[in-house]
């Protein structure tokens, strides 16, 4: 039975600020789940702490609202234990790239089959607008007492450098495009990362909807739109690593890194990098545990009538004196 979009919505009152970019992201996730017709109990949304952290309560799948900065750790644990689930981790830029940056880097190295979405709004929303790691040096949002003293982190660059095998960027007000990216990310075999540009109308008065729309750089007389945002796929950009050769991989990596540095009047969205040649974690595990995917931890029978069925007699024999 096909599920409708509304099936993926909960009745929880959504208390994000009016106009918040987060709404678009939740919609896009729900649309993606619906379009892929993923049974609700086969999906789990893990989220961090922040405005964005509330996401898991608005989606009618399993919803695990974790700790600040730790969403990837919980999500990976679940994904390893039950690889049949569709696992989406979601959280703020402070959550994922500030306090959680260490897990971000480590997750890239593991390449577990799941998706991570960062709500990139340049601020710490829920704690009242401090600078997040993506805010640029010297920028002063209205919520800051003085200009930001930190250089920004480049989420796309960091993801690529950390070994994520699918790296993309979306924009929270382009919900359809974002939905397509989420579908591509979920379908990707390995760890996929989505950096979503998400205006925070309450605290970030720099990277606003208007700013992304380029109203400040649009020559009104010319009656042209100059949205800062464009789509990589419209430029013929090819993000895919096609074959297993160092030169190919390096070329696609560097291309992604160089693209990730583009910011200002032109901001690329779409898929920056996609590599399905690097094995996902499950395959690596199967080198050691051949039936891992067939009989993963969550599926294993461990007892019968309250008695253990694991047979450790060989091990005990080896200890016997």
């Amino acid at each position, binding site marked *: 039975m096909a599920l409708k979009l509304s099936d993926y919505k909960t009745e929880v009152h959504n208390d994000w600020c009016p106009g918040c970019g987060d709404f678009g992201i939740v919609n896009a996730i729900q649309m993606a789940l619906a379009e892929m017709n993923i049974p609700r109990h086969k999906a789990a949304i893990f989220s961090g702490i922040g405005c964005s952290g509330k996401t898991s309560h608005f989606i009618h799948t399993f919803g695990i*609202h974790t700790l600040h900065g730790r969403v*990837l750790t919980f999500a990976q644990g679940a994904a390893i234990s039950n690889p049949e689930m569709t696992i989406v981790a979601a959280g703020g830029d402070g959550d994922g790239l500030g306090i959680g940056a260490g897990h971000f880097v480590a997750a890239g190295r593991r390449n577990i089959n799941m998706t991570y979405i960062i709500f990139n709004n340049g601020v710490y929303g829920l704690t009242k607008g401090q600078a997040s790691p993506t805010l640029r040096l010297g920028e002063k949002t209205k919520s800051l007492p003085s200009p930001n003293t930190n250089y920004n982190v480049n989420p796309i660059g960091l993801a690529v450098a950390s070994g994520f095998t699918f790296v993309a960027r979306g924009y929270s007000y382009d919900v359809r495009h974002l939905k397509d990216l989420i579908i591509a990310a979920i379908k990707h075999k390995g760890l996929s990362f989505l950096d979503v540009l998400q205006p925070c109308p309450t605290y970030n008065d720099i990277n606003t909807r208007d700013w992304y729309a380029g109203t400040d750089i649009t020559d009104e007389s010319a009656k042209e739109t100059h949205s800062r945002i464009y789509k990589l796929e419209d430029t013929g950009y090819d993000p895919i690593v096609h074959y297993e050769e160092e030169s190919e991989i390096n070329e696609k990596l560097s291309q992604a890194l160089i693209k990730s540095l583009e910011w200002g009047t032109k901001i690329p969205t779409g898929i920056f990098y996609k590599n399905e040649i690097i094995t996902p974690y499950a395959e690596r595990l199967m080198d050691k545990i051949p039936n891992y995917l067939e009989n993963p931890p969550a599926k294993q029978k461990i007892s019968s009538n309250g008695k*253990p069925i*694991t047979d450790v007699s060989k*091990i005990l024999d080896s200890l016997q004196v």
Partner: protein
Amino acid sequence: MNTDLTWLIGGPQGSGVESGANIFSKVCAGIGYQVFGKREFYSNIKGEHSYFAVRISDKKIHSNVNDVHLMVAFDGETIFRHADEVVEGGAIIYDSDLEETKIDEVHTLDIYFKSRLEKYLESKNKEFSIKGILETAKERGVTLLPVSFREILSKLAEDTNNPKLKGMIRMFNVIGVSLSLGILGLDSKPLLDSIESIFSKKPKVAEINKQVANYAYNYATAKFDKINFSPNSVSKEPNTILVQGHQGTAIGKMVCGCRFQPYYPITPASDESVYLESNEILNVKEDRPGSTVVVQTEDEISAIGMMIGGALTGTRSSTCTSGPGFSLMAEALGWAGINEVPVVITNYQRSGPSTGLPTRHGQDDLLFAINAGHGEFPRIVYASGAIEESFYDTGKCFNFADIFQVPVIHLLDKFIASSVITCKRFDPEKVTIDRGKLLDKIKQKPYKRFEQTSDGISPRSKLGLEDGIFWNTGDESDEYGHISEDPYMRIQMMDKRLSRFDLILNQIPKEDQVVSFGMADHCIISWGSTKGPILDAIDMLKKENINVGFIQIKLLHPFPTEYVKSLLKDVKTIIDVEANHTGQLGILFKQNLGRDVDYFILKYTGRSMTSTEIYDSLKKILGNKAKKREILTHGA
């Protein structure tokens, strides 16, 4: 006289002390002796002093003693540090090439030990050298057995026409073991068998080792007399295993169905995870093979997060750590608490605070385990007293976690981790698996993860279960798991979670909470690995017709106040034995029973207690000659 003999082998880290001790233990256990061995080592990979004391007996033993009867030293440091432990009638096998070594030539000796040593030698009018220290031993009636280890190798090299053998100083350990067995008059066959089994995959190496062993064994029987303490013959008890500290919990986890163990390496905990991983594929009765997925994480914060994620899928999940790692888990522990996630943290304590003495023993994390994490939430803190116990307790901990839906902290320590003992073969048949209210199918819809129930525990769904969708949050939540800031919901939920304490105390069988080893006017209270030396010390007193009681508290949180009170109601003097400075169980005892402990026997040098030390302190206490705090110091 019964057999009760301690054999000590020492040498630089990386020189084969541990494998030497393993061979010796295996041989003795194979013959039928009871074995209790313990390893001490520095936080270092190569070069610092390390030693293994193996006690063997024809009776069940649970600890080390102060006395050493036969010592093997293939370096100078071992002699300097341990010669004074060898008792009258005992013997020291040592490398005769070392005799001229001066204290100052041993660079790994720290200045504090050196100055104590020099003072001692000065007082005895001896020179500051191996010769000097050996003379003091000899004067005490210790037999000196100098052997040129190198010469043995040279001779053998000649005999076997294998010149390579000459420089193989990593054979020193096998030589030491073989000499020892010769001197003790034990049969050589088990030695050769055990070498063969150890090197079963490298037949050439096995061959050389056997040659060396044979040669050294014959050398000893030919050249030296048996020592006084030479063991009686014994008959082997069936179904005995020789097992190391980390194997109890590891095998326990396999048996009870733990299938996911994310961990971050830390001494003395990582051995358990490495062992689990080395045995990751599991035989399962009448089913396809199972597996334990062991994941080395980027840190302990990730380990606990992953473990929780695993547990949410219904997988029995665990992690294994020690002090610093456990500190990093404090925040997520509270998340597991508020979300009622059953997980087991196996916590091998070591000496704190901070990095402390990272390879040394300690029991100083009890109060922290009980209070770790901000806010109030239910948890269980459970401690095992020995390796054998830890096997069965591991299964219990997982049951507790599942039944009460709380995180369980299973406390062990470095003493357990680096012991090797003989015990009855673990019996998986005695293990039961009780997953509590974990659901396989949802009957009542809509499903509410935190439904209010009469016993305060809600049926538990898992990720992937149809119709069993739930939400979790670290925030206070409603029955569905959605955030709620409603004050009455808050009260309901706090009451629900914290009512767990009473339930735990009511439902865990009393004998799993506290083990009583007999009562008397004087009664010891303790927890964890002090159990072994306490039992042996009590036995020693029993031989003098002195009775001392002992209760081992296993369930430390929630504290079984009423039960302990009832057990101790006629006790006059309470003696708290612990490997820490502040007497943490004593604090807990006062906090719960309102009663002061009368004496503390404490040790915080990072070395585990011997039964001798406890015996001595108990004698002082019984003779009214003790201070309130008896501080133990034995052990290099």
